[in-house]
Structure formats: C-alpha cells, structure tokens
C-alpha cells in the first residue's frame, strides 16, 4: 500500500516537475528556424547582453530591498507576537493571515484605489487643503506592493521558531547575569536564525520573480525579469529565449537559496534545503 502512494507521487513529480524542467532546458538550448530545430547557446549569450543584465539586476535589487524591509518589520512583529505576556498575539496573527485568503491580484489591485490620483490618500489630502501627490508607478510603489504581499512569509516561520524556544534557556541566561539585550543577542536571535533564513528565502523567491506587482503598481514602466519572461511567451512567442531567461533566473534563486542555507542548520523542517 505504501508503495502505491510512493509510486504515484514519483509519477506525479515526473509529470509535473521533471518533464517540464527538461522541456524548459530543451527550449533554452535550441532555436528553430523555418521549422528546423537546432542546438545553440545563442539564447544564453543574449541573456548576458547589457539591457537584460540591467533588468536582472534591477529585479534582484528590488527583491533584496523588499526582503530587508520584510525582515526589519517582520522580526519585531514576530517577536512581540511570541511574547507570552502579549494577549493579542492570536488576533494579530489572524489579521496577518486573513488577507492571504484573498487572491493576490485583488489585494494588489486594492492598492491602486488607495494610491491613485483620485484615490483615498489623495482625496484626504485634497480635503485637508494639500495638493495631490504622485504615489503610484514608482520603484517605491513596487517595493511597497511586494512587502505587503510577501510579509507573512517572513513573519510566520520566525514566529513559529520564537514560540518554540525553551524558556529555561532564557531564564538561565538571566540567572547568569545577562541583561535583556545580551539575552537576545546570544540566545534568542541565534536560536531563531534558521527561521530567519527560511523567511528570507521565502520572501526573496517570489519577490524576484513577480510580474503582477510591477505591472499594476509600477505601471509597466520598470521592466523586471518576470515581465521579460512574460513578454517572451505572451507577446512575441519566443519560447526559446524565454526559457533561457527562466533558467538563468532559476540559477539565481538556487544560488541565493544555497547562500541562505549555509547559516541554516536547523533540521526540524520548515526549510528548503
């Protein structure tokens, strides 16, 4: 019986993970002309042209900023929620999770109505006699949208790991004369580090590949790598180049995940590697 489950899972993986990746590789390393398919590295050479590198670097840059902000906001929130004396922790957690029940597209659309020229913020400003300001369609708006969408992926793992910390370790530190900052620096933070690493990976990955956020909140003005891939498939039907860009992006994420996992030594699940 066990075997049946195992085999069907393996089959599932082959059909939906292995074969698609092989297909992506096949398209990336080939080019077709007049129906004749031939092997080439041209697609990869093209990825390393200045303009595409610029797009890739901008995506990585924005994703890193987003990850950093998520960490700076997420860690204190997770810390407060994990505090035993904090009574609203489950309410707060609930509030962070509720928006995730909604489709990401809708959540991002909602920001449009808030930030638009005739949106909520600008209408309030106008009511108070201030002049309207341009809030939409900048790099900052893109980061805002990413942080909003991906923040829970940072908070949840950190929150879980902080909750699991054995309180006697903290008491021991206090008994030995550590002040609260030293306790945090030497005990709490190191124990939560693996979760921080999975949080970083889980925020960075969707942030670097997103194309909905820059489309809606960036007004399509700043091309990110996700938009570039979308464009190759939907707009000009160049699957070969699109696949090559996708493979490079996968490599970037893979290396990022490896770097993050160096610190990540917890083997109790919740991690990627």
């Amino acid at each position: 019986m066990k075997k049946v489950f195992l085999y069907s899972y393996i089959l599932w993986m082959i059909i939906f993970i292995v074969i698609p990746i092989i297909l992506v590789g096949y398209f990336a390393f080939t080019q077709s002309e007049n129906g004749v398919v031939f092997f080439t590295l041209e697609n990869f050479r093209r990825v390393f042209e200045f303009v595409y590198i610029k797009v890739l670097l901008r995506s990585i840059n924005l994703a890193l900023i987003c990850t950093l902000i998520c960490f700076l906001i997420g860690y204190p929130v997770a810390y407060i929620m994990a505090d035993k004396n904090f009574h609203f922790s489950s309410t707060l957690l609930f509030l962070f999770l509720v928006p995730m029940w909604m489709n990401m597209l809708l959540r991002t659309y909602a920001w449009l109505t808030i930030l638009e020229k005739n949106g909520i913020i600008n209408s309030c400003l106008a009511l108070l006699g201030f002049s309207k300001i341009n809030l939409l369609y900048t790099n900052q708006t893109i980061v805002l949208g990413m942080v909003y969408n991906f923040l829970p992926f940072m908070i949840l793992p950190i929150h879980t790991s902080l909750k699991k910390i054995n309180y006697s370790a903290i008491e021991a530190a206090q008994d030995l004369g550590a002040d609260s900052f030293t306790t945090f620096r030497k005990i709490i933070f190191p124990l939560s580090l693996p979760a921080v690493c999975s949080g970083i990976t889980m925020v960075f990955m969707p942030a670097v590949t997103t194309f909905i956020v820059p489309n809606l909140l960036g007004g399509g003005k700043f091309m990110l790598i996700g938009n570039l891939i979308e464009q190759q498939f939907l707009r000009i039907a160049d699957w070969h180049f699109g696949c090559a860009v996708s493979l490079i992006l996968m490599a970037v994420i893979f290396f990022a995940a490896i770097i993050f996992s160096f610190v990540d030594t917890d083997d109790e699940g919740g991690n990627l590697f």
Partner: protein
Amino acid sequence: MKFRFLILLAVFILIGCSKNNDEKILNVYNYGDYVDEKILKMFTNETGIKINYDTFATSEDAYTKIKNGGTNYDVVIISDYMIERMIKENLLEPLDFSLIENYQFIHSRFKNLSFDPENKFSVSYMWGSVGILYNKTMVDNVHSWKILWDEKYKNQIFMYDSQRDSIGVALKKLGYSLNTRDIKELYEAKNELVKQKKIVQAYVGDAVKDKMIGNEGTLAISYSGDALFCQSENSDLDYVIPIEGSNLWFDCAVILKTSCHKSFANLFINFLCQPQIALMNTQYIGYSTVNSEALKKLPDEIKNNKIYWPSDEEFSRCEIFHDLGEFIRQYDIIWTEILAED
C-alpha cells in the same frame, strides 16, 4: 499499475481526428470575453452541434499553442497580422464559401483585406482603430500624436503596454510606416519613446478603461471599441484618429488545417455572419461590426458615432499591421530597452 497509467496518458495525448469524426462537436478558440455566449447556445440549439469554447489572452499565445500542435481547435478568431503568418505557414484551411452564404452581408470595406488579399481563408468578425482617448475637460484640440509628447501633460498620459501599438505611435508620429523593417527608423522611434517615458504616467493594458473613466489621466492610447465603452461611462471622454494616421485592426474567423470538423466550422462562421447574430455580438462586445445589415439595425446614436464608424477619409488614413516574421524580435529588443531605462 504505473505502466497502465502511462499508457492511458499516451492515449490521451494521441487522440486524433479519426475516431471522433462523426460526433457533432466544434472546438472554438477566441479572445477572452469576445463573443456573446448566448450565441454559442443558439448555434447548438439550431444545429445540434455542441461547442467547446476556449479562450486566449494574446494572439501570439494562441499561435504558439496551435503551431506546437496538441490542440484540436476548428474555428479560431484571431488578428490580421497573425492570419497573414498562418497563411504563410500553411496552417489555415480555405473556407467553403458555398456554406457561408451570409458572407454577402459583410461590408465591402472588410473584404479582400491585405492580409488575405483573395479572401480565401478568413471572414472578418470585428474591427476597429487605434487612436487617442482624451478628456475634453482637461484638453482640447487633440488631432496629432505629437500631443503625447507635450510636457504640459506630464504624468497624465497612458501608453499601451503592447510593443507594436506603442512603437507604432512613435513611428506614425515620425511619418514612418507601422510595418517598418528599417532598423534606423525603429531606433528613431525608440529615442522618441525614451524621451516620452519621463512624462508617461503608466504603460497599461485593459486597465486604461478604468483609469480614463475615473479621470486619472488626460490622454491615452486606446482601441476604438474600448473608447466607445469609456465614453458611455464618462461623457467627458472623446476619441480621435490622429492626422498622421494610425492602425486599423481586424479580427477574423479562420479554420485550421488540422480541424476535424470542417463543414461544421464553415456552418459556424456562416452563423456568425447572420445579421441578427452579428447585431447581438456587436452590442454585447461593443466593438464595431463588419456586417452591413447589422449596421443598419443599430440605434442611430451608435452608428452615427464617429468612433464606431469612422469616415472613409479616416479609414483610408490608416494602415493594417503586417506580419514581420523574425524581424519582430527587433521590436521586442527596442521595447525592452525602453522599459529598462530608468
């Protein structure tokens, strides 16, 4: 167990024409929200042919799926330049006009168009132009593409997030053809668009409708059909085909060479050309009809609206997209360079 699964899968993939020939089924592939679905039911009621209806987002997307095989579509409704490419690549089946007697109702403007000069493979479905949608309370005297470069309208301009449409605007502004294969002209257009980027609020797709209706912008590139819809929601909006000329587009019904139900497909195209059906469709979609009988039956305020039915002079000012073949990559590179600019 595993083996049986694989065989089943293989069978699913390999199902071809032969077996289902006599089944009364028709597979239709169309842009999203681009038919009054009541019409599909009416066709089934009238003929007993069941329709499997499927949609796509862009014609490139549809083309790639059809070209790579594995689909079983019979009738496809797709755009002009893509039809030109599909004829070139021998993907289309000539229509059987003895079954499409309603073809007589198609207005002469929409026969023998340049992408299918002998009108052997396609029957027009909807059409329209590309122009400037503007808010009369914020700007007047819009007649040229040049206004989209006017610093006065900084952050009030919406461009279209499609390569050929937006590059086409710059080409037309410079007095070049929309179908240029001259790399020098293309780079001139690029420089124009880079210059313009500083004053553009956003490059949007369908969202342009909400934006213009909500008074979020002054000027926008728009399809005539969308402009009509926006005008019906916000009467301050108007639309113009600029004097330098613009793009005219046609979406047409075609039958694929690989179709297993060709006679049904011809019947369906004939059905779409029935004046009453064409009328229902144009009123549902809001785009201009190609059917001269349907046009007559439309209410005056629609058929006399210049957005819905531009004059012959405006019509002749415009150009139709041609398939650029591999050269389309140059447009893609230029577009990427524009959007990669800071």
